[in-house]
């Protein structure tokens, strides 16, 4: 099996108070079957053997459902492949001697921890501000006991697919969290269980988004383009409709 050599430019930063920089690494013996993260494992093994500090990066499930792997690859959140997280990107899309730049999510609301790892707890606080329901759902009800239209259930499900990875913020030229917040608000607004807190949910989540220091949305729709779950900016339009209903 032939292998490739990949030239990486990786953002290295010790902590939030130390300035970071792009560092060049030459990674030899990269198999086309490796995922992008496995290529980083391979790099880190080589670094550790040399006694150097490995590159810190977030990862967990490595199958595109946990939303941990936050990497801006060649200027695009999660890399060039549509509808996938960085862990689902494979090295077969690259050629021998390609140069790849890897940077962390950059946003005031996502403070730097180390290298490619940033603190995304701002998303948890937005979720906690209103992204829940208080009704007692009890045991699993009979199917169709609560009528939900096919359209609403399909769209709510599309929004519920959000894995909270933060790519929307990373790719937005304004570092806005509107797609994340919009998906959460619109998902509950379309379901009967979400009606009790409907008004205060949208207001509180929008206010929390503001407090965290995310930017304003300018309708660039870059978030939809990079979202590994391909969530539509229709959710942002729905969040605005919800907001207008809540304040009037």
């Amino acid at each position: 099996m032939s292998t490739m050599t990949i030239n990486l430019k990786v953002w290295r930063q010790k902590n939030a108070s130390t300035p970071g920089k792009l560092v060049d690494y030459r990674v030899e013996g990269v198999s086309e079957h490796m995922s992008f993260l496995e290529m980083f494992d391979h790099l880190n093994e080589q670094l550790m053997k040399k006694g150097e500090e490995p590159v810190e990066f977030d990862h967990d499930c490595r199958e595109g459902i946990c939303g941990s792997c936050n990497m801006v690859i060649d200027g695009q959140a999660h890399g060039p492949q549509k509808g996938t997280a960085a862990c689902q990107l494979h090295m077969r899309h690259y050629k021998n001697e390609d140069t790849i730049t890897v940077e962390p999510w950059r946003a005031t609301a996502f403070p730097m921890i180390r290298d490619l790892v940033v603190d995304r707890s701002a998303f948890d606080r937005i979720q906690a501000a209103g992204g829940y329901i208080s009704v007692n759902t009890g045991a699993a009800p009979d199917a169709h006991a609560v009528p939900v239209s096919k359209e609403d259930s399909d769209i709510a499900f599309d929004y519920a697919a959000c894995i909270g990875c933060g790519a929307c913020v990373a790719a937005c030229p304004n570092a806005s969290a509107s797609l994340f917040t919009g998906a959460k608000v619109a998902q509950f607004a379309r379901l009967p269980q979400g009606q009790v807190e409907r008004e205060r949910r949208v207001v509180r989540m929008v206010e929390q988004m503001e407090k965290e220091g995310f930017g304003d949305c300018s309708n660039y729709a870059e978030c939809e383009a990079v979202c590994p779950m391909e969530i539509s900016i229709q959710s942002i339009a729905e969040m605005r409709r919800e907001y207008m209903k809540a304040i009037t």
Partner: protein
Amino acid sequence: MYSLLTAFQNSVGRKILTGVTGIALTGFLIVHLAGNLTLFTIDYSNADNAFNRYAHFLHELGLLLIVAEIGLLAIFLIHAYLGIAIYLRKRKSRPEAYKQFKTRGGASKQGFSSRTMIVTGILLLLFTVSHVNHFKFGPGWSGEAEYTQVVNVGGEETQIRDLSKLVGETFQDPIYVIVYVAIMILLGFHLRHGIWSALQSLGAMNKKLTPVIYAIAGILGILIAIGFLLLPILIYFTV
């Protein structure tokens, strides 16, 4: 349940207000353009023409016109303030830029028109100040005889401002024509992103309609810009 005032204090409220004021300004542009279209039909040597009569009609509205003008000014200032506020917050939200940053394409609407809204917006603001100063408060505003004519309005001999004369003279200057046309092209870019963006900001959008509305908004923006920029060119070559 929640007060309307909270809307000024967060990104969703700011976006809704930007959209509402933007749509109002687009509506004003369409009415303004409709008024301008009379300039295609008139004889510039005769002050008794449709354009001057329309201007006189607006002027005669008196208090109603003043209220409308104050309203328009307020809408314009709110729109400009919000645009600048959004831009400043963007700079705070990502102080350290990416070393490499590239659009993914596909669903993304990132491009020249969307990325230059602040630049085209500020240039349009400066242009509007100069434009109002030049035409509205220009020669004839204080009743200078050279730019005033007596015309029969509704059976009465009335002194009206010869605004078409000022328009005709202004666009004899090639520099004015070039600057005006250039600014109108920028207006086209501003509207190309602005019109669809306002609709998205007001929540008037769904996944299936987005491509259609995006296309129609673009065509509308370009038509408005072309309507405004043809006029100085035509005057330069024919009057």
